[in-house]
């Protein structure tokens, strides 16, 4: 074979860098003589951004693929369990305004249209919230319960879950595993320049003290600076600030009142006048931050709102200001260089899409790693198509949260509902969903980031009504609906009777650990 791919060089050592290195090294046996060499070059003086404390359930498979123990991960990354998100004050801003986007699919999803039946219940006044009627997870979250038990084998569950984690600790944890176990070579040095070959491919990166680091494929994990894809290849950045308005985050780390304070097992996202506040419970602290639109709020006003949310402790905390430039590169794979993480793009952390995109990228690169440079352009083309689709869909899905709001307290909310700011693809979907619930065939990817179920949770959680009057026969399968609504009630009862408190389970995992079986 000509031009074989024998060495992958990853530039940048945050979570994106180490996750990609780990996936590649595990799959392509970097620790063995006949495997693909994986080298990670990390600058000693660039700190990781350290955002992205929420994951998707996909992280469980990622950790499994890397071969790490869930117990070690929880112990070393300050991690806790996350069962989706609770959105409060997003619809009208009143005190009892909330809905859930849980991680468990609606009952009978894919077997029938339970959403149609729920809408009928809603019409005759016999419903509670959508997520509570069709899914047992909201009740677990509301009671502060964990998604599994200590007896549950590691990575298995009673209710589907993801994690909240300390991103700094997670990067260190991944680094240790990658270098000690998976055979990733770690070079701590500054990249000063790039050597290119005649075909425009990167031949090597030049480092200050380690000279040329040569490779066949280069992964750009250099964060916002996008050193290889952005600076070197000049791949344009496609902003989406005309769709998603938030451009600034103010973040604080809030200590717990005491060691027994409950840890919420879901992300709490609270609508504010010019954005929203995230609230993520780790083992030893909460991560809280206000993401807002600087066109709709002054920093002073934003600080005041964050201070009000956090309470008395706020004055003693350090506030970090992080700029958010919403958007992504026009392509992600150019020549023999592919960008993963912030170098590829960034969106507000509303649905924890940052880490899941890193995971999906790392997974696709390692699964599709071309054996030879001769076929790399095919993989690059497919990678670009796949990820452009994913970014677009994520932007649509985030925007969906804003266009369904009825808040009028600030232009931020009314501007968000301006049709000019809504992508055509989302407008089209909304037109179809006037008459029926989102379904799997609305989406064309076999690996959709947000499945139809997620759209249902947001639409019906926020009071959207699909009008089934033309297709009233959708309600004929009464037994199906009855069975699943009843089944959901039973599952709630059972889950509540067997699940421990979230804090209690985390403490026990630290003390005793999960079993592998």
């Amino acid at each position, binding site marked *: 074979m000509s031009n074989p791919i024998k060495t992958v060089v990853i530039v940048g050592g945050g979570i994106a860098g180490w996750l990609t290195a780990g996936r590649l090294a595990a799959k392509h046996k970097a620790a063995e003589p006949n495997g693909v060499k994986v080298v990670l070059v990390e600058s000693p003086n660039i700190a990781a951004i350290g955002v992205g404390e929420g994951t998707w359930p996909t992280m469980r498979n990622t950790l499994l693929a890397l071969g790490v123990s869930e117990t070690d991960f929880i112990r070393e990354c300050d991690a806790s369990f996350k069962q989706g998100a609770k959105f409060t004050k997003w619809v009208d801003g009143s005190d009892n305004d909330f809905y859930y986007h849980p991680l468990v699919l609606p009952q009978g999803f894919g077997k029938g249209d339970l959403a149609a039946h729920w809408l009928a219940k809603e019409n005759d006044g016999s419903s509670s919230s959508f997520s509570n009627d069709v899914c047992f997870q909201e009740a677990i979250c509301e009671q502060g319960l964990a998604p599994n038990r200590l007896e549950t084998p590691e990575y298995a569950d009673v209710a589907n879950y993801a994690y909240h984690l300390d991103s700094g600790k997670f990067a260190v944890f991944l680094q240790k595993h990658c270098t000690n176990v998976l055979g990733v070579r770690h070079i701590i040095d500054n990249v000063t320049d790039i050597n290119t070959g005649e075909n425009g491919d990167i031949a090597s990166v030049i480092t200050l003290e380690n000279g040329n680091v040569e490779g066949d494929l280069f992964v750009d994990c250099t964060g916002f600076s996008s050193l290889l894809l952005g600076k070197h290849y000049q791949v344009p950045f496609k902003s989406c600030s005309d769709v998603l308005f938030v451009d600034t985050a103010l973040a604080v780390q809030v200590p717990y009142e005491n060691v027994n304070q409950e840890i919420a097992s879901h992300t709490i996202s609270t609508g504010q006048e010019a954005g929203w506040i995230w609230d993520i419970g780790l083992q030893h602290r909460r991560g809280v931050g206000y993401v807002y639109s600087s066109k709709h709020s002054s920093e002073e006003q934003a600080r005041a709102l964050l201070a009000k949310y956090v309470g008395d402790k706020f004055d003693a905390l350090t506030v970090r200001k992080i700029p958010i430039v919403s958007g992504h590169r026009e392509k992600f794979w150019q020549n023999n260089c592919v960008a993963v993480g912030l170098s590829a793009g960034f969106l507000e952390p509303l649905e924890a899409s940052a880490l899941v995109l890193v995971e999906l990228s790392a997974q696709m690169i390692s699964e599709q790693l071309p054996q030879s440079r001769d076929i790399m352009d095919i993989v690059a083309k497919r990678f670009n198509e796949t990820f452009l689709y994913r970014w677009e869909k994520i932007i649509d899905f985030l925007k969906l949260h804003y266009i369904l709001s009825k808040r009028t307290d600030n232009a931020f909310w009314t501007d968000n509902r301006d049709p000019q700011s809504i992508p055509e693809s989302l407008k089209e979907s909304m037109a179809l969903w006037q008459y029926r619930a989102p379904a799997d065939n609305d989406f064309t990817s076999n690996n959709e980031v947000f499945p139809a179920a997620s759209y249902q949770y947001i639409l019906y959680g926020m009071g959207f009504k699909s009008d089934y009057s033309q297709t009233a026969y959708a309600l004929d399968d009464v037994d199906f609906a009855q069975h699943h609504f009843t089944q959901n009630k039973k599952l709630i009862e059972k889950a509540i009777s067997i699940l421990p408190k979230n804090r209690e389970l985390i403490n026990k995992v630290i003390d*005793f650990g999960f*079993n592998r079986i």
Partner: protein
Amino acid sequence: MTHLVAVDNKNHLNTKIDLSKIEQHGADLHLVPVVLSEFIHLAVQYPIVLTKHGETGQFVFSAMLGFEKNENLFWQEEQWQGLYVPLQVRRQPFFIEAIEHQNNSEHDNNELVVCVNMESPALSNNTGEALFDINGQESTFFQEAKDLLAQLLTGEKENNLLLESLTLMGLIQPMSLDITFVDQSSTKLLGLYTIDQEKLTSLSKEQVLTLYQAGLLPSIYTMITSLGQVHALIDLKNKRLNYY
């Protein structure tokens, strides 16, 4: 209820244990923790399985006595009807507790103290076996009771050794039992684990040698053989269902 008090010859000089009531402690257990040294006796009647401890989630060796909570099929007419009563029941109402000596800073060794459960139905002032004679010397009965406790203590170490080897070699697998009883009622038992026999036959020579030299092979095979007793247990349950 359990209320443990350290045994001494002043407070317990007149305390007696009514032997006929000791086994009542096992009346409503459907699983009882067991130790390696009694496997061979247990296997004659009880399936020996692994379960997870409710507090710690860690594996424990248990003998199955019934199919649901509070069901001991060997407890009939106020008596234990089994050929062998597990140590964990026979040691009642005595326990070993570790007492911390905080004022002795040089040695943080915990002292082991024999305690008695003051809430035990077997405790009596007039009938049964005394713990001490009138001079305060330990009775033969009490010495034998302490021997049982010692067996449990040693057993715990042997259990851990076996458990470590089983875990290390990946020899534990979950088992699920779907059982339909004579009255057509059925049960699905979850949370039980046993030896993965396929894995056992595919161990390397070195692994087998390790198990052999540590003296663990007999216990592993006894566990496998004891699973046949599930049928005996079903039979007992069916008889009970017919009886009522």
